[in-house]
């Protein structure tokens, strides 16, 4: 089984990526990078990463969130994080990235934030 499974949903012009597994060095980080690049190539620039199924992230995974965020911003888009586990919240606190990312606990609020 792949380290990270990413399913894609659309809510209007917003793409929600439901992520399940680990975002770690190697396969997991590469899967996220490839998906974000493809979405940007398709002109999809409003993206929510739903992390409710992500139980483990290492520094490479955190780096991939940052790269995704900057890549989407560069295309004048917006990337938000949804449903962070406590462990991921702690990692974002350690790295002082909680102030960088837009983080939501509720999908409705995350969707509304794009309006």
């Amino acid at each position, binding site marked *: 089984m792949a380290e990270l499974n990413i399913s894609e949903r659309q809510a209007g012009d917003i793409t929600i990526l439901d992520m399940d597994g680990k975002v*770690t*060095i*190697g396969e997991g980080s590469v899967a996220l990078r490839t998906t974000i690049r493809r979405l940007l190539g398709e002109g999809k620039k409003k993206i929510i990463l739903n992390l409710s199924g992500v139980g483990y992230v*290492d*520094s*490479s995974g*955190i*780096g*991939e969130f*940052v*790269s995704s*965020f*900057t890549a989407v911003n560069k295309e004048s888009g917006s990337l938000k994080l949804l449903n962070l586990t406590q*462990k991921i919240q702690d*990692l974002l606190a*350690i*790295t*002082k*990235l909680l102030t*960088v990312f837009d983080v939501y606990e509720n999908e409705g609020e995350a969707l509304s934030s794009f309006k």
Partner: protein
Amino acid sequence: MNEKKTKLKLPSRLESVEKAALEAEKLAAENGFGEEARYAIDMAVRESVANAVKHGNLLDETKSVEITFENSGDGFEITIKDFGAGFAVEKIPDPTNPENLLKANGRGILFMRSFMDEVEWSNHAEGGMMVKMLKKR
């Protein structure tokens, strides 16, 4: 308490990161460390082996990464050696400085320091870097 040493010698491949972390987690569990400590040990081992494989040995598979796990009276001790050119840890930029926040890399050492009680780098006699980490009981 079981006070034996476990040694691993792994090739400089990304797959070695997972292998080392799984072994660390298993040994920590066998030695009675709780879930939070095992998560911390797993994370620190992943980060340090990833550094050794990528930045130390530069993914050169002719060079290995040597790891020792030891359950001692102080706690769970981990030593990781690479055979690369080495680096000055004090020269690694602080990833939490505002100018570094949006960099994709450079957070591994911060994680190792955050999750372990002691982390110490040195050059070893065979040429390369050695990092020693301790998770207290």
